[in-house]
């Protein structure tokens, strides 16, 4: 599991890096999306991995070590929401810039050759 998650984070983050270094706004936003997946899983992994131990405590007498760490999950939840919002914002700016500048370059103008 661990190695898979590590590689997963790596692949997504690497793809994200590649994309955010590209010149077109859509590439950038795609990169941001991939990076946000990577980062979310990364945060999640910081609570270590556990299978079938959802943090749902149906009785008061429990052993906390038998549950997945709920804190990173809560953090990821917040991060997902914020990531969603900011992606939306960037999207709107992206199309706004395309309309206003006539270019989909991330700098809002075509680079001079």
């Amino acid at each position, binding site marked *: 599991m661990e190695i898979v998650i590590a590689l997963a984070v790596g692949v997504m983050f690497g793809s994200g890096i590649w994309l955010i270094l590209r010149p077109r706004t859509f590439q950038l936003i795609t990169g*941001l999306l991939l990076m946000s997946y990577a980062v979310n899983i990364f945060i999640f992994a910081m609570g270590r991995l556990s299978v079938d131990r959802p943090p749902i405590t149906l009785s008061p007498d429990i052993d906390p070590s038998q549950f997945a760490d709920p804190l990173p999950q809560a*953090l990821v939840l*917040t991060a997902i929401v914020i990531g969603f919002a900011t992606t939306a914002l960037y999207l709107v*700016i992206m199309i706004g*810039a395309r309309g*206003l500048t006539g270019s989909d370059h991330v700098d809002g103008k075509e680079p001079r050759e």
Partner: protein
Amino acid sequence: MNALPFLQHFIVLPILLPLLAGALLIPVKQSRYTLKFALSVTNTVLLWLLAAALLVMADGGYWPDGIGVYLAANWPAPFGIALLVDRLTALMLLLTATIALAVLVFSAKRWDRVGIQFHTLFQFLLMGLNGAFLTNDLFNLFVFFEVMLAASYGLVLHGYNLQRIRAGMQYIAINLVASFLFLIGVALIYAASGTLNLTDLGMRVALLGTEDTWLLAIGVTTLGLAFLTKGAMWPLGFWLPGTYASASAPVAAMLVLMTKVGVYAVLRVWMTVFGDGAGALAGFGFTALTIGGMATLFFGAVGMLASQDGGRMAGYGAIISSGTLLAVIGLAGGPVLASGLYYLLGSTLAMAAFMLLVELTDRIRPPGAALIAITMEAFAIEDKPEDPVGQGIPGTLAFLGLSFAACALVISGMPPLSGFVAKFSLFHALLDILPTDGRIPGLTWGFIALVIVGGLAAIIALMRLGVRIFWASGDIAPPRLQFTEAAPITALVTFCVLLTVQAGPVFDYLDRTVAGLTQTSTYGERVLQEPAVTRMPRQEAE
């Protein structure tokens, strides 16, 4: 039943008030400017009073050891989110409220009408700023950073034009990526230390094993990079000049404050986590901060010299100020930090005033005309002397010129205003603390030299700009100036003057602030032992 004393609630109010005001403003129709403005200003005045009250309370007026803790949702500290007020926080809150009030009044006649929801976003921005200053929890800091940034995205694009959207794209993209770094950093810190509470982290750091220490250091470094991107450290702050130059004046003034949040966060985290009690990590990264700060300072100085318009120049001025502060944090030591904070106050106020001023001077002289003036200055050296009779200066122009000069003096650190006092006290403190071998290290000398050179660059650039705006503009119609535009600038400049004149008392306060900051153990006691209010019994049925 131990109810929470009412005054204790003051800690959360700087976040709550703008939240509620913002929420109330959302459904109000765009056409009701006056109502919106009134609500917004009233709330900001309240915030100012609140900040002033907190300042008094934190300075021994209510909390004897200068630390007020508020357990949001009533959960004890490392578990729930704790808000913390000390002298530093209170100071930053007051600074924020001051600039915010000035900016709001300034925007009353024009800027709140060019787009929608200006006041809403503005209130949310205040909420984010205040939250970032108040919170003692790293992830909560992220949330408030995002609140602040999200609002600033909206405000940067306020008045939507080509330039703004170009700059906005850059600003937003970089901050989005920086936010990822923030998250990575916080997550690593949690993985290594098992806590998110900053004070708790400071308590735990010495007890960590080697692996955890390694992870923690990486985490904090990553977090630091996120802060420094927002604080515009070289080479992470290239977004800043363009953004400042294109944002509308009131927004640019608020942005000035926002770079300081990055610096503030660095200061908080580093002071708390890597203090003397940090075991293997004591003093971690301070030198890097100094070097980064100095590089930033240099870049800002060079940028000032290279820029020809006020907005951009102010942007580089903000970079200089960030660089100086970062280097000061890096060169840490009690009295130096106090000087750094004093510098922060003065430069932020002046820079904010300058941002507002730039917009007014652009009315005299549209930025396009500046280019012509440059060539004029460069080539018309043997200009035929004209009639030796001076020209009268209209009152508004005199006002602008005077304010410009005052801002320029503060920004460049020329005597006699607060910029100079700050610089002097910085140097004084740096030379006054001696390392054990009695020799001032080269880095300190380098820093002093850089600050002086930076100030020089600033004054050369600002003088060039000022001469071009006020002297070389030929026959100009005096700009129309609203009272609501002049008053905030006057107020901000007056604050700078007051800072200069009252340097003694201000420094007394700052010395107490810094003395408090270095008492990590006090924070530990106060934050981690702050009792929750007794809960009402809740689960009796089950």
